[in-house]
């Protein structure tokens, strides 16, 4: 079985986005919509301008803008981050349908003349870039002051405030980065295919959230989690023709494993809290 690059790279990008937002304390549920939007924006701008740099710029702007909208709703208007993000997940495909219909007369498929999958010695560049990004995210989170501030703001806003730092600004930045990564993930997906297809992300924004918890909320195990998830997706594709094999179980298994991992983490944390009866000070 070959390495599932085409599934892995977008998933890893989105999962890194999920990680940054979760660590800052405001899990980005809108990734699914942002991936779709990134995929569409890439094809749209590439089709209209033929300029890859402009395309990248547009994709990044799209991710940043939608994240800013979410940050405004949740941090300024104090909306529930989960519910508001669900709203974005509905909004984005609707707007895509509109734009696609107005410009191309259909909502389904837009095909470019060529696909973009630059390679270096037989390895896809996007794959290498995504792996490098994971290492960069690890470095930023655990080896820079800013990463430390981000992690602190995700768990104790009081602590961040007591050191004179602005927790909302940290959260907004994390959300913007998260949205940009999600949109880039989507762009990789569609440019690699050379086409926009409705529903192209196929739930990868949600799977990225599964990967986040399966990857223990750390960038390096996250890569392994994404690889596992991409493999199971690829495997189920192979098994489509063999109805006697339970491919559904295979697809459902990663989520199930994640639940188990999550429950074990919760249980051990709880055990730790329970054990610590307050000592008597003398």
């Amino acid at each position, binding site marked *: 079985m070959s390495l599932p690059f085409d599934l892995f790279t977008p998933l890893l990008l989105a999962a890194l986005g999920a990680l940054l937002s979760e660590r800052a304390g405001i899990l980005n549920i809108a990734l699914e919509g942002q991936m779709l939007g990134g995929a569409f924006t890439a094809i749209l701008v590439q089709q209209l301008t033929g300029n890859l740099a402009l395309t990248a710029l547009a994709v990044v702007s799209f991710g940043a803008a939608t994240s800013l909208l979410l940050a405004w709703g949740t941090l300024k208007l*104090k909306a*529930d981050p989960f519910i508001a993000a*669900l*709203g974005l997940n*509905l909004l984005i495909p609707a707007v895509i349908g509109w734009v696609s219909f107005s410009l191309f007369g259909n909502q389904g498929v837009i095909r470019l003349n060529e696909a973009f999958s630059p390679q270096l010695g037989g390895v896809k560049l996007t794959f290498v870039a995504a792996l490098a990004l994971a290492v960069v995210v690890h470095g930023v989170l655990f080896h820079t002051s800013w990463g430390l501030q981000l992690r602190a703001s995700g768990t104790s806003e009081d602590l961040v405030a007591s050191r004179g730092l602005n927790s909302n600004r940290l959260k907004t930045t994390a959300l913007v980065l998260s949205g940009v990564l999600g949109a880039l993930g989507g762009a990789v997906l569609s440019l690699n295919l050379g086409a926009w297809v409705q529903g192209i992300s196929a739930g990868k924004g949600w799977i990225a959230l599964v990967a986040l918890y399966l990857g223990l909320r750390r960038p390096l195990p996250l890569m392994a989690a994404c690889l596992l998830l991409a493999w199971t997706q690829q495997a189920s594709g192979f098994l489509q023709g063999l*109805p006697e094999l339970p491919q*559904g179980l295979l697809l459902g298994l990663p989520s*199930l494993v994640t*639940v188990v991992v999550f429950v074990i983490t*919760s249980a051990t944390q709880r055990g730790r809290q329970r054990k610590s009866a307050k000592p008597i000070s003398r």
Partner: protein
Amino acid sequence: MNPQAKRPNPLIGFASTAIALAVALGTTVVLLLLFGSDPAHALTSFFGGPFSSSLAWGNTLNQTSLLILTGLAASVAFGSGSFNLGGEGQIYLGGLGALAAALVLPPGWGIVGLGLALCAGVLAGGVWGGLSGALKARWEADELITTFLLSAAIIPVVDSLITSPLFASAGSYLITSRKIPHEFWLAGLLPPSNLHAGALLVLPLVVVLGVLISSTPWGYRLRLLGRSRAFAHYTGISLARYSLLPLGLSGGLHGLAGALGVLGTQHALVQGFSSGWGWNGIAVALIARTNPWAVVPAALLFTFLDQAARTVVLQGQFPFQLSALFQAAILFFITAQLVPVARRKLRGKP
């Protein structure tokens, strides 16, 4: 690892609901006027569409009845301080439970078999929701995450079971299971619309749940938990038991919605037939501010707007999914604190 501790209380602020609805409706109408091909006609079909024929009427009512169920399901969970984001999977599983029962039971059992098939759907959804409740009760695993993940885990499993030899049908271009025997169909009420006898179950169920939640000691404790978890705990309410029950009940209601979809509308399990019902139920519950009685008008309003938007788009007067747009606007604004709430008294001590 506990996002719930940071969540704002969605119960506060009735005015915010009204504003969110107004913003959503206003946006929709403005877009209709700006971009509709024939604004006057578009507005007429928007507001009149859902009632234009008995077909439209029936479909609107059928969709409303399902949304009432999923809205109730979300309300029961939210109102007691448990967040159920796994509606999609629970509904789908409920559909599978009903399908399995309807295919296994001898058709001669008639109405009894039909009842059993409904129960199987409720049970399937209930077990899946209750599982998250049990995980929370036993290990304090945040149900927000586990409901979502368990739902994500079960959907592909149901998908693949549909096409497995157990349930598969030959020669259909849709991905769907075999049809269930005619004896287990819920009778159509307003043919050719989708409305069926199952919808008649929904209103009595609203009354039962409404009374249960607003007028029994059990419902009182649930509401107390939803509003003030610490206080409820200190009065001696078992947090474990009251995590399990509402999530189980919520899952059961989702399961019933799935079962009605299979037994009443599709008469088979069509892949992705219930996609979106769970998320829409959450929107309805939030519009109703988790009050079970208010779920009925909220679901009616939501379905009306949804169908209206679909009508306009279908008739080509508007170029894209208007319904998704206003649903998005409702969800985005519904929990926002658009009216600043006087909360100074919430801080306990000086």
